[in-house]
């Protein structure tokens, strides 16, 4: 087992900002763990523009935004980046176990920042009646398949949920030559940014069905159609309002949840509803010296906000380490 001043789990926008900020505030022994082969996290699959408007005052694509941070990280000697490294266990004394090809490592951290991001809610979390054929994807998975793997999931899609990823994917399907039959949203208004409603749906005349739900998935082996129904104020299906949209693909974009299973394992209490750590202030947890930042702390609308708040996490960790050092 090795010891480190600061260990950061996650090399996406949150982890990279936290690492840079901790370094700028004087921490010189930083281990940054990233499970992928590259830094950047989910930004690398977000090939669309619109990142950085607040932070860099210009519009960048996700990969470009990531690169601005990643290049600085790789230039700094005090930040060790360990790629293909998968954190699997965390104990309350901030000992972290991670796997990488050929190795199982244990590291004890004086301070630890979890920048593990969030995951998408699944079809299973919003029970959709009907069959379970191939062709149902979370919007983020579809994004990865198209943008990273170069695979087009389907030719005619319906999108459930008007979260930003769903809207972005509607446009992405169109740009790949596929059709989008509609976006179905149970709420009264879109969950996504206005910018995305305008540029992803309106630009391509994609219908947005507000106050509607998918009442049934049809198709045995592959999605063949979905039934859509209107819902009333109590979110109950309005009888007789059903109509069918033929499609081969259903994308589910019904929200994001912070990914906090590791800190939960270490005994940090989480908010049952939001899956965020229960805490007094920004980025804090019930364990001193264990910080959570970015979308793992709470789901942000903009990557820019993730960066800003994660810079603060890096600073907080540096202060914690300094105070701890002085206390000895």
């Amino acid at each position, binding site marked *: 087992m090795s010891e480190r001043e600061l260990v950061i789990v996650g090399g996406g926008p949150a982890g990279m900002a936290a690492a840079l900020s901790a370094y700028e505030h004087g921490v010189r022994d930083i281990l940054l763990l990233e499970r992928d082969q590259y830094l950047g996290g989910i930004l690398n699959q977000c090939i669309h523009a619109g990142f950085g408007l607040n932070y860099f005052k210009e519009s960048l694509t996700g990969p470009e935004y990531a690169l601005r941070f990643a290049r600085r990280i790789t230039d700094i000697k005090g930040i060790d980046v360990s790629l293909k490294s998968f954190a699997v266990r965390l104990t309350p004394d901030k000992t972290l176990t991670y796997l990488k090809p050929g190795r199982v490592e244990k590291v004890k951290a004086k301070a630890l920042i979890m920048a593990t991001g969030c995951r998408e809610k699944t079809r299973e979390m919003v029970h959709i009646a*009907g069959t379970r054929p191939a062709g149902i994807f979370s919007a983020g998975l579809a994004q990865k398949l198209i943008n990273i793997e170069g695979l087009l999931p389907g030719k005619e899609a319906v999108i459930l949920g008007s979260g930003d990823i769903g809207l972005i994917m509607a446009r992405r399907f169109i740009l790949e030559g596929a059709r989008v039959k509609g976006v179905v949203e149970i709420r009264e208004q879109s969950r996504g940014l206005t910018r995305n409603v305008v540029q992803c749906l309106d630009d391509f005349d994609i219908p947005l069905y507000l106050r509607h739900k998918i009442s049934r998935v049809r198709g045995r*082996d592959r999605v063949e159609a979905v039934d859509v129904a209107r819902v009333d104020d109590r979110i109950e299906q309005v009888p007789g309002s059903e109509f069918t949209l033929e499609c081969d693909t259903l994308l589910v974009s019904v929200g994001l949840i912070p990914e906090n299973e590791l800190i939960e394992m270490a005994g940090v209490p989480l908010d049952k509803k939001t899956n965020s750590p229960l805490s007094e202030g920004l980025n804090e947890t019930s364990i001193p010296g264990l910080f959570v930042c970015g979308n793992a702390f709470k789901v942000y609308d903009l990557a820019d906000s993730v960066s800003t708040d994660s810079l603060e996490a890096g600073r907080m960790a540096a202060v914690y380490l300094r105070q701890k050092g002085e206390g000895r």
Partner: protein
Amino acid sequence: MKAYDVIIIGAGVTGAAIARELSRYKLRIAVLEKEEEYAFGVSKSNSGIIHPGTQNSHCSLKGRLCVQGNRLVRKIARELGVDFKQTGELIVAFNGEETGRLRELKREAEMLGVPGLRILNKRRLVEKEPNLSPEAVAALYAPTAGIISPYRLVYDLCENALKNGVEIHTGCAVKAVGTAGGEFSVLTAKGEFRSRFLVNAAGLFADDVAAMCGINDFRITPRKGEEFILDKKLENISRHLLFPLPNKISKGVLVIKTADGNPMIGPTAQDAADKEDLGTSDAGLKEALDGARRLVPSIDEKDIIAYFAGLRPAAGDDFIIRREEKVPGLVTVAGIQSPGLTAAPAAALMVRGLLRDCGLVLKKKLFFRPRQSEIPHLFSLTFKAAERLVKKDPSYGDIVCRCEMVSAKEVRDAVKRGACTMDGIKFRTRAQAGRCHGSFCTARIMRILAQERKLPLTGVSKRGKGSELVKKDRADV
């Protein structure tokens, strides 16, 4: 055209158990399975309960086979390296009248030979099962109940049968059966197979296969059950399998454990019109939740991380396992609904006997290899054991599925052992079965599957032809 001594139609748990049992003998055996992989029919939706035999009439065939199977399955699990856990079950009574019925159940089960039964009073119940509803007043405790992974049991039975010389042909739906000249000629999607003896273990389609052989005296009525899986975080929500008292059509909604640690609630029970209707419904969700909450009130809809429906192949109340006098050499194994998984090893012995009665000569092989090495799963290992494994093969350290901690090595091994679809990999390794449902790992698993099977990525399917995941590969342009 190939000739065999015995052809078994169906590679569900029953067919697999029969194949493995018969593979002890000097016989040429073929199993014909219509799906792309074993266990993809009725067995994949099984809840994995190894029943003690408490819920069957003492004169029923299924009761008898269940009690016998409960004993036999332990040895088989040990030999094959499948994880079996004895958890015990509680059949819960909510009032005095139901407590009376518990006594009747106990008497009936004791006549079947179910061991160790006890009636627990309220005080003992609270000690044993703290999350149980305060409304519960008593329970029948059956210590021999347990859980197993239904699909892993089928896979291991099949793999062991293969190891002992059985052929298993998948994607091999039976289209017609000829019975002329004391020989069966089975026409399938993959050509003709001939044999002297035929075992019909075709699950939901056993009546169709029977009709092809000229047997028309039973019908399979699919009865749907919807099941809802809860987050692994609730692993300890119950210590035992919890049952309400059974009613006429089903055992009621249960709160059980599964071999992978997730609790499960269900099943519902409705007659289904269609043998391929595996849809779930809002009504089913409500029924399962209401039923489960009656037993454990703290269960919440938000705890559900997955759901599915299965079809029980019902043919009246009991199993039908018999030799067909009208068609010499044909053995029918039909109507194998609950407790079919538990009963499978006993049913296999019974079928062996029936085949012998039909004239099949059983000569033991000199070398029958009953054992399979256990397949290691990272998620169930200690740090030290994981470390050893990763040192031995670096790709054990290459995590593919984050939620269930499955490595590239495990996924590759699953493909090498026979998985050829995404679901096959899921059932074998649990990759894609966790809380993110494959959002993270699908792309990587597709690549591994394509690579190992030498398939184009557009050929990777969820569960066989027609269920391909993606429509186009940009690299092909």
